């Protein structure tokens, strides 16, 4: 039985540079990196020493707060460098990859026969636990708290998002194995949300509650789906997994191998041929984008344009990302840009902006903020693109003045930064909504636990 979720509020941002359905195989990078900052809220304790030889699946570091949460090397090779920042904070562990990859064997398992405890232990041991995220706070799941439900969004609605049906095609067995295993971790349901026209890849999965979602972005955001299906209340926890990480977990159970290879979408106007490519998590961006990127004043983003992270060309593919976006940097002045009619940018207002006339046009947006940072002035605009039953501006203000009672009461437990990506996009006052939410959530976690 599927339950339909229809989202009315939101905004589809149509950009040029959609990936063609054609996958190239990028060569093995010479260097890979695992960055603790990809795992928000984790304090890493290093295991790997500089110069040590590692196999794909050997531990690099673990979480200080819970030693069972391991972070493994995605490739085999030699640990060349531990990059540190201010106060010796670990920024990245770099590994020079061997030409012949060796995987650590975790042993195959029959998922049907495993107990919840065995599943959990296997995920710990194999370094797959970081794939499970939790809300509230949008961090790696705390294994000591039982989730009331597990959510999987198999519908990507973000701008230029990788088509999961395409990137995960043929992975039915892995998906099913992973779903069967993780379903044991909750007393509640495993909710799987798919698009209106989803193929049997997702709809045929057993042991899940299927939901069909439709409507503009952020209908594919798992946060939107949680809010519509089973909103989080104080004291409750839900866990979240992405389909591509499920495939890794599934493959682990079926083959005993941690295979972090994934199909990555290269999107955005700065790619000469936007398409798909295969890459291992942590790969060097320059190797993945080789010969495709037009590198004149380009911003490269690991992830999508709304919630990804900027990476330099010598940077690395994020641990969870299945998309690299490249758009023009907008660091130029525009004469009378604040009052002349605008045809080449997107806007939800109609203040001399004409994107409402051409809803299907694809835009080539750059990174210019189109204005200066100001206090909140305009009201009622965020609500048009924010489908959650939360007052976005009031919540943002509570997060800014750090009133914990209000943060809690206005819906702080239900949100993640990415839920505020669209309000940040349309914000006339150019406020950094996602940063405000991230800092507020960190404060809540610290103070309220």
């Amino acid at each position, binding site marked *: 039985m599927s339950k339909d979720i229809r989202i009315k509020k939101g905004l589809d941002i149509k950009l040029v540079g959609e990936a063609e359905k054609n996958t190239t195989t990028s060569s093995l990078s010479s260097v890979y990196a695992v960055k603790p900052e990809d795992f928000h809220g984790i304090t890493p304790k290093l295991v790997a020493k500089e110069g040590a030889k590692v196999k794909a699946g050997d531990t690099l570091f673990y979480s200080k707060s819970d030693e069972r949460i391991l972070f493994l090397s995605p490739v085999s090779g030699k640990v060349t460098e531990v990059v540190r920042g201010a106060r010796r904070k670990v920024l990245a562990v770099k590994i020079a990859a061997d030409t012949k990859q060796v995987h650590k064997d975790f042993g195959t398992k029959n998922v049907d026969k495993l107990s919840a405890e065995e599943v959990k232990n296997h995920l710990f041991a194999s370094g797959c636990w970081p794939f499970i995220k939790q809300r509230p706070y949008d961090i790696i799941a705390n294994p000591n708290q039982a989730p009331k439900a597990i959510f999987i969004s198999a519908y990507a609605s973000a701008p230029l998002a990788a088509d999961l049906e395409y990137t995960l095609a043929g992975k039915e067995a892995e998906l099913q194995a992973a779903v069967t295993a993780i379903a044991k971790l909750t007393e509640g349901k495993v909710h799987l949300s798919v698009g209106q026209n989803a193929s049997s890849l997702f709809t045929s999965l057993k042991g899940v509650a299927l939901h069909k979602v439709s409507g503009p972005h952020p209908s594919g955001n798992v946060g939107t789906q949680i809010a519509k299906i089973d909103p989080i209340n104080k004291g409750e926890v839900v866990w979240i997994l992405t389909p591509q990480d499920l495939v890794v977990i599934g493959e682990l159970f079926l083959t005993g191998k941690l295979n972090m290879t994934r199909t990555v979408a290269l999107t955005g106007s700065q790619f000469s041929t936007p398409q798909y490519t295969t890459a291992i998590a942590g790969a060097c961006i320059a190797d993945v984008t080789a010969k495709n990127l037009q590198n004149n004043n380009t911003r490269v983003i690991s992830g999508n344009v709304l919630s990804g992270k900027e990476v330099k060309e010598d940077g690395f593919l994020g641990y969870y990302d299945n998309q690299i976006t490249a758009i023009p940097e907008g660091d130029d002045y525009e004469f009378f840009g604040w009052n002349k009619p605008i045809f080449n940018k997107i806007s939800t207002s109609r203040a001399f902006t004409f994107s409402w006339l051409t809803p299907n046009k694809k835009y080539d947006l750059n990174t210019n903020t189109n204005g200066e940072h100001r*206090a909140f002035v305009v009201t009622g605009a965020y609500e048009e693109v924010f489908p959650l039953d939360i007052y976005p501006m009031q919540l943002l203000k509570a997060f800014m003045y750090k009133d914990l009672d209000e943060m809690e009461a206005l819906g702080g437990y239900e949100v993640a930064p990415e839920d505020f990506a669209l309000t940040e996009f349309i914000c006339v006052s150019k406020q950094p909504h996602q940063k405000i939410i991230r800092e507020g959530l960190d404060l809540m976690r610290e103070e309220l636990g």
Partner: protein
Amino acid sequence: MSLKQNLHNLKEKYRGTKMAPAFNAIHTFLYLPNEVTHTGGTHIKAADDLKRTMNIVIISLIPCLLFGMFNAGYQHYAAIDPSLRGDVFANFFTMDNLWIGIIKVLPLVIVSYGVGLLVEFIFAVIKGHEVEEGYLVTGMLVPLIVPIDTPLWMLAVAVVFGVVIGKEVFGGTGMNILNPALTIRAFLFFAYPTWMSGDKVWVYDAVNRTGTADAISGETILGSYAQNQEVIYSTWDKFMGFIPGSVGETSTFLILIGAAILVFTKIGSWRIIVSTFAGAAVMGLIFNLVTSSGIITESSKFYGLMNTVWWEHLMIGGLAFGAVFMATDPVTGSQTNKGKWIYGFLIGFFSIMIRVFNPAYPEGVFLAILLMNVFAPTIDHYVVQGNVNKRLKRAKVKTA
């Protein structure tokens, strides 16, 4: 070197100095800044910023301003020679009328912007924040809501008061509790009451000629009604705005065009505009009911205004202008959609109530809006509380 490059170099040179905000204000007036999105958030941004938003409000006010300039002359000459009212179309858009507008209205605009922006710049430099766009709209609103003969020095004093006490002490644009333009208007009203009300201030030169052979009368419609007198203007005149009154508030027709611009561009809240008119209509109907049922008779001093047909209330005085351009101020108004309905309705409701019962000054819009500005956070509080309660209801863990 190009102007763009020169300005860029200057910006870098003055970065971090006291004068940087003042320089940036001029720079960003000419050029959209070269700022890029920060690295960990939304990498792209929508096209509009606060300047563009404020700009649209100013554009929507321009018809009212131009009309107000012609009307200034028209009311002046028509008061001297009432026969001019016979053929409005021939006698309205004339150079003579415009000339009065230019010598009387333009200085109001210039003083309003000059003094207001000076105060803004001084505060920006002292406090080290950027010059914000809020005053662009306030500066245009102020000349439109004052009587034509307002002395320029009074306006200057009021603007200083309004910007400092109405806005800057709260932290600048976006932080104020009261609408700055209305704070300026209220200051004028309470500080210089004889200049701001009565029957001589609405028509240019009426005060000077009082008691002389060519005295001119300049009663507004509300003034006439308040004294239970006949009103000489037709409904058409009232709707189109060929009547005495504050500079920009007379033409309901052009105000509605402004409203259409604001609503279409999604800058002004249609909820507030509609609900303000609805609130005023309801109060007007209540008063009409009172007079038709005979509770108030013609001998009462309130009879004239109470007996005004409810829809006429919407066209006369400053109600339409207040509803469209003042009540919709997003900073001082209600911020939630439900709150906006309540907020607007009460503004309209109280506007007509104050208009009828205010013995000194037959107008209530600006007082009603200021009153509701103060209550807007309370309205929002209860609306938001509804959402909070919904959340508490479905929670299983109850907190103490």
